[in-house]
C-alpha cells in the first residue's frame, strides 16, 4: 500500500468516528435508538463473521446467543440487582462455553448439515426462553431493565446510552482487529480454505474450530447484554430463528470474511428499512428486492464489490508495468 493510500484510510476512519460521535447529538430519541441498535447488532454480526466469514463454519444460532446474553443481563440486573458489568462477565463465560460445545458437531458435519444442527440449537434456546417461566418469566417477559452507570455517568438518557454502545463497539472492534491479524486469524482462514492442508501444517483444526465457535458466540452474548438495557424490556420473540437469519444476512450482505462487512451489513439491515419507511407498505418488499439484487450482482456482498474493483485495478497496474518493461526489452539493442 502506498503512503497516500494509508493516510487516506486513516483520514477516512477518523472522519467516520467523528461523525458517529458528533452527528447523533441532534438526533431524536428514536434516531438514537436505531443507531444504538446498529452498534449492538454490529457486535453480534462481528461474532458471526468470525465463525462463518473467517473460519467458514456455518451457524444459524447467533440470535440464540444474543438471547442468552440479553436474558443474563435482564435477570441479573433486575432480580439480582447486580451491575451490568457482572452480567457481561457471566454472559461472555456462558456463551463461550455453550458456543464451544456447539462447535463439537462442526468437527463431524459441515455446511448445510451443520446449519441444521445449529438451527436445532436455536429452536431449543427459544423454547427455554419461552417455557422456563421460573427463570425468564416466559411470554410476559422482563421489564424495567435498568441502564448502567459507566464510571459514575448514568446512561439512562438515549444519547449517553448510545455513546455507551458505540464505546463497546469500539472496544470489540479493536479486539477483533487484533484477533484476525494474529496467528489465530490466519489459522481461522486456513481452516476455511483448506482444512486438510491446515492439519498437515500442524494446525490443530479441532481446537481452532471450537475456538471460532466459542469466541463468535461470546460476542453474541456481549451484544445481548447491551440489547437488554437498550430496549429495557425483553421477551422471547426477538430471539427466535429470524434474528439468527437477520444476523446471517448482515454478514453476507456486508461481505463475509471482510473486517468491515458486519458494520455495513448491520447498517443496511437496521437502517435501510427505516429509510424506506416513506414508501409505507412497500418498504419490506423493496428491502427484500434490494437484498436479492445485491446478492445476484455480488455474492460476496458489498465489500466484495470493492475488493473486486481494487484487485482489478492492481492487476491492470501490474500488467501495465509489465508491458512497459517488455517494450523496453524489445527496443533495447
Amino acid at each position, binding site marked *: 500500500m502506498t503512503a497516500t493510500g494509508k493516510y487516506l484510510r486513516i483520514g477516512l476512519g477518523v472522519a467516520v468516528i467523528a461523525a458517529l460521535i458528533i452527528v447523533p447529538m441532534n438526533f431524536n430519541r428514536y434516531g438514537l435508538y436505531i443507531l444504538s441498535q446498529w452498534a449492538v447488532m454490529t457486535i453480534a454480526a462481528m461474532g458471526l463473521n468470525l465463525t462463518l466469514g473467517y473460519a467458514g463454519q456455518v451457524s444459524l444460532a447467533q440470535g440464540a446467543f444474543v438471547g442468552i446474553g440479553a436474558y443474563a443481563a435482564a435477570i441479573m440486573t433486575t432480580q439480582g440487582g447486580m451491575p451490568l458489568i457482572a452480567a457481561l462477565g457471566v454472559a461472555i463465560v456462558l456463551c463461550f462455553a455453550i458456543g464451544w460445545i456447539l462447535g463439537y458437531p462442526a468437527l463431524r458435519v459441515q455446511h448445510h448439515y451443520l446449519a441444521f444442527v445449529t438451527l436445532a440449537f436455536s429452536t431449543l434456546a427459544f423454547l427455554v426462553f419461552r417455557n422456563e417461566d421460573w427463570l425468564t418469566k416466559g411470554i410476559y417477559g422482563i421489564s424495567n431493565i435498568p441502564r448502567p452507570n459507566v464510571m459514575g455517568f448514568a446512561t439512562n438518557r438515549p444519547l449517553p446510552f448510545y455513546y455507551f454502545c458505540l464505546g463497546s463497539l469500539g472496544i470489540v472492534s479493536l479486539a477483533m482487529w487484533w*484477533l484476525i*491479524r*494474529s*496467528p*489465530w486469524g*490466519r*489459522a481461522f*482462514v*486456513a481452516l476455511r*480454505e*483448506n482444512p*486438510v*492442508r491446515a*492439519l*498437515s*501444517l*500442524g*494446525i*490443530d*483444526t*479441532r*481446537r481452532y474450530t471450537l475456538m471460532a465457535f466459542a469466541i463468535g458466540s461470546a460476542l453474541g452474548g456481549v451484544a445481548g447484554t447491551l440489547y437488554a438495557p437498550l430496549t429495557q424490556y425483553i421477551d422471547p420473540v426477538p430471539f427466535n430463528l429470524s434474528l439468527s437469519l437477520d444476523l446471517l444476512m448482515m454478514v453476507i450482505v456486508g461481505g463475509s470474511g471482510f473486517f468491515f462487512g458486519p458494520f455495513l451489513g448491520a447498517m443496511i439491515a437496521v437502517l435501510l428499512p427505516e429509510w424506506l419507511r416513506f414508501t409505507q407498505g412497500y418498504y419490506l418488499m423493496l428491502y427484500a428486492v434490494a437484498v436479492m439484487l445485491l446478492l445476484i450482482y455480488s455474492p460476496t456482498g458489498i465489500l466484495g464489490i470493492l475488493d473486486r474493483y481494487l484487485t482489478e485495478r492492481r492487476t491492470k497496474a501490474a500488467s501495465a508495468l509489465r508491458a512497459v518493461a517488455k517494450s523496453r526489452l524489445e527496443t533495447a539493442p
Partner: protein
Amino acid sequence: MTAVLEVSDVKKSFGGIKAVDGVSFDVQEGEILGLIGPNGCGKSTLFNCILGQLTPTGGEVKVDGKVVTGLRPSELNRLGVSRTFQLLQVFPKLSVRENLILAGQEHQGNMMSRLLGPSDAGLSAAADQMIGFFKLDHLATEAAGGLSYGQQKLLDAAMAFMGGPRLVLLDEPAGGVNLTMLGDLKERLAAINREKRATFVVIEHNMEFVMSLCTRVMVMAEGKLLAMGTPSEVRANPAVIEAYLGH
C-alpha cells in the same frame, strides 16, 4: 546412521481392496528415498497412512523410534514430519509470505502466545529467508492464488520446510512443473537435504527427477513392495521393468 522413519507391515484396505498390503521399509537420516510405481499401486495411500490422514488397517509406523500410528496429522507435523500433496495446496487468498508464516506458526510458542504475541509469530525473517531460498522474492506480497502453477508448486514445497522438519514426504513435487523450474526445485531440495540434514521421501513419476535426486529408490506394485535399491539397481531390475518402467 539412525532410522528416521520405520514402517513395518503397514496395511490399508478399502472394503475388499487392499490398497497397501504389508509394506515395510526404513528411511535413514539424511537420505532421499524415491517411491515409484504405476498409478493406483498405493503410493499415496501409503503416504496418508504414514502421515495420519488415514488410519492403517494394520502395521506400525515409527518416527525417530517413537510409535506414531494413530496420531493426527497436526500432531505428527509438530513432531517434525511435514508433507506436500499431489495436488496444489497453497492458500490462494493469503500472500506468499503469509502462507509461509502460516506454515511455521504452530511450531512457535503455544496457543496463548500465538494470540497475544506478534502477528507474524516472529517468523517474518524466516519466511523471507525461505522466499529468497526458493527464489520467490519478487512475489512475497502477491496473493498465492495469482502465481503461476510452477511458482505455486515451489511455494507449496517451501511451506513444507517452514517448521524445520526432520522428515518431509513429497507427493509428486514435479507434476506439471516446467523444465527450468524443475531444475530449480531439484537443486533446492538437494540443497536443503545437504544443509539441514533433512530426510525426504519423494513420490514421483518423472524418472529423470527421481533417478538424479534420490539416493535410494523403492518400487511399489499392487500395494506391495516390489524392489528397493540404488537408482541403477532398480533400473536394471527385471521385475521393475516388467511392472513399471517398460522395455
